């Protein structure tokens, strides 16, 4: 018998796809309605996730705008709501602490140290006065805080040693004082005339505080002229910049150990303390007894974004349900399509379409519909990402992985929704199918 001649002919996948495409094209209205469910589902998932990520990104950007690889050492314990016992005593952060941390043998993973003492001060230019935050710091502040200059120069080491009467102003401060030309102007602060040597470039508003409303002056000048220094040179906070992102936690450990040692035994024993012994000391020191805290940007970002993350998951879940409903819609329409096309299926089978091919044809159709919905939904999502920020003042971030994920989900919905109708079509007996109606 010539049974070998019965080898099932191979129909190319492109052919199956072409048949499925044709069917989608010939039933335009129905296809569109089917696609609509997936379309809305994917668009809402894309947008909610995009909004959530946008919100997280915004918070992270704000925190990261403080500088990169930043650690902030604050006096007292942040957990007691800013009530800092022992202010002005030997246990407060001091300039000496900052100098100790700058020592590469104490904290090798700390690249830069910028101690900051912030006070409020009244600036006068002519008849205009403006109260602003006066930041007394070192030249390293500019790099550590990732700021740049719009014009002029920043503080120099020479300013620091000579306690020069110089100021670097933020953009807001310059405009509030009504200064025509920022650099070269003379501004009075605490009865002393200062020369404006530089103007900072705008950083953009960071949360509730205007980072562009400030006057920066050398620490030595602040001590000498303004007399804001305590007897031991206390500072409000110390900014530390890690050598690199992955050495930040090492920098944290070193700084913590060094400060714990210093504040435990007085302000004298830093030289010669190796990192190892400093760490051991830190481990020995009870955390509750330390009078400082170190926060990293990472922890700030995490704390700030966890809420919006929860909300995003919740919203995306709801949007996911609409996607599920869309998938059920595809299944429903495909089932209708199968019963509507019983004759066509019967004919195709009579003409030699094997069951597997019929199954693939309907599966391909469901996938095409779902994928079309996915692409349209993604397009709508991108459009929304362009338009929404101007409407609701919320950034929308749509990432490439999220987009591909959405398409993958759409395709999966198509496969899941298509399997049952497709197998029903494949199981139809050609005679029954041909005889219907």
């Amino acid at each position, binding site marked *: 018998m010539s049974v070998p001649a019965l080898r099932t002919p191979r129909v190319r996948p492109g052919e199956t796809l072409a048949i499925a495409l044709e069917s989608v094209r010939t039933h335009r209205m129905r296809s569109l309605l089917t696609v609509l469910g997936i379309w809305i589902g994917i668009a809402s998932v894309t947008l909610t996730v995009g909004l959530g990520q946008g919100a997280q990104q915004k918070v992270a950007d704000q925190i990261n705008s403080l500088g990169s690889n930043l650690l902030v050492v604050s006096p007292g314990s942040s957990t007691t709501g800013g009530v800092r016992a022992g202010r002005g005593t030997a246990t407060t952060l001091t300039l000496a602490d900052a100098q100790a941390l700058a020592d590469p043998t104490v904290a090798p993973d700390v690249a830069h140290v910028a101690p900051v003492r912030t006070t409020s001060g009244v600036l006068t230019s002519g008849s205009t006065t403006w109260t602003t935050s006066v930041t007394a710091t070192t030249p390293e502040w500019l790099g550590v805080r990732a700021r740049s200059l719009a014009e002029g120069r920043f503080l120099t080491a020479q300013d620091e040693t000579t306690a020069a009467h110089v100021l670097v102003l933020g953009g807001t401060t310059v405009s509030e004082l009504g200064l025509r030309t920022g650099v070269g102007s003379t501004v009075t602060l605490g009865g002393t005339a200062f020369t404006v040597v530089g103007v900072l470039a705008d950083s953009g508003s960071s949360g509730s505080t205007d980072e562009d409303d400030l006057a920066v002056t050398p620490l030595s000048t602040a001590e000498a002229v303004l007399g804001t220094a305590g007897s031991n040179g206390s500072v409000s906070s110390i900014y530390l910049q890690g050598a690199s992102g992955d050495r930040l936690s090492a920098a944290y450990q070193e700084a913590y150990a060094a400060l714990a040692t210093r504040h435990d035994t007085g302000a004298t024993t830093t030289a010669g303390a190796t990192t190892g012994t400093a760490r051991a000391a830190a481990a020995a020191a009870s955390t509750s007894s330390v009078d400082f805290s170190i926060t990293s940007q990472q922890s700030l970002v995490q704390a700030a974004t966890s809420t919006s993350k929860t909300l995003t998951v919740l919203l995306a879940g709801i949007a996911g349900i609409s996607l599920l409903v869309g998938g059920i819609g595809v299944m429903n329409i495909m089932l209708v399509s199968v019963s509507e096309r019983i004759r066509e299926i019967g004919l*195709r089978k009579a*003409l030699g379409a094997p069951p597997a091919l019929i199954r693939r044809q309907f599966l391909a159709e469901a996938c095409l519909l779902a994928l079309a919905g996915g692409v349209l939904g993604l397009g709508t999502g991108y459009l929304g990402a362009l338009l929404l920020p101007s409407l609701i003042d919320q950034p929308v971030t749509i990432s490439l992985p999220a987009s591909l994920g959405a398409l993958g989900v759409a395709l999966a919905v198509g496969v899941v929704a298509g399997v049952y109708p497709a197998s029903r079509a494949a199981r139809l007996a050609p005679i029954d199918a041909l*005889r219907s109606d």
Partner: protein
Amino acid sequence: MSDEPLGPFTWVDDADGTDDPATGDVATTPAPPVAGHAVVALEGISKTYATGAAEVHALRDVSLRIDRGEYVAVIGPSGSGKSTLMNILGCLDVATSGRYELDGVDVEDLSETDLAAVRNTRIGFVFQQFNLLSTLSAWRNVELPLVYAGVPRAERRERAHAALDRVGLAGRVDHRPSELSGGQQQRVAIARALVTDPALILADEPTGNLDSRSSEDVMALLDELHASGRTIVLITHDLEVAAAAERSVTVRDGVVLTAHDQQGEPVGAGA
């Protein structure tokens, strides 16, 4: 299963069929051993449908042989079992028992996929309802079997056009079925049946939906195909239509009663 009765109901407990009154007339001569030139060789084919507690014997012990180049009419009233016979001949259904060899292929135990391949390569169907896909143009309808045969597109187009040319519709290749008359639609269907160059053309009431002029057209076309050496089985209830064939087989109550040649002389099935 069907909107037409399949045959007399026989209760299971007396379904042995030995006391069938028609037995005397039945062409019970067993088909001779399958020779190389037989297109259809049915041997003791029975088909039983179970409908609840009752069993319907649509076909009982049917033997039939059709040689290459023959033009055979299968005649029978509604419910005689001729549709079942046609389904089995067309590999659209499989017999409950018996042996069917189509063009040298034993089809009883084939899987659905293999049956599809047999239908695709060896049988050309012409249906009463034409069964053209309304969304496709004439040539796209004709090429369908070739799609499932895995023939490349360019060759499909060429062969479909040739088949339409053969049935006199060369000028209508891009027309949709709705733009064609009934007779033209049936000719498209015949072109579709021809395009794979099958061993057997199975025409099920091909003129059932046509007016008399179109019917003559279609019958003339079948005659032509027969003259060119095609093997054709025509299933009909219309004796006038059946007269076009060179041999007719009558089915009644699920059994093949007689086989006649054109002169009305009975001939043994497969003799």
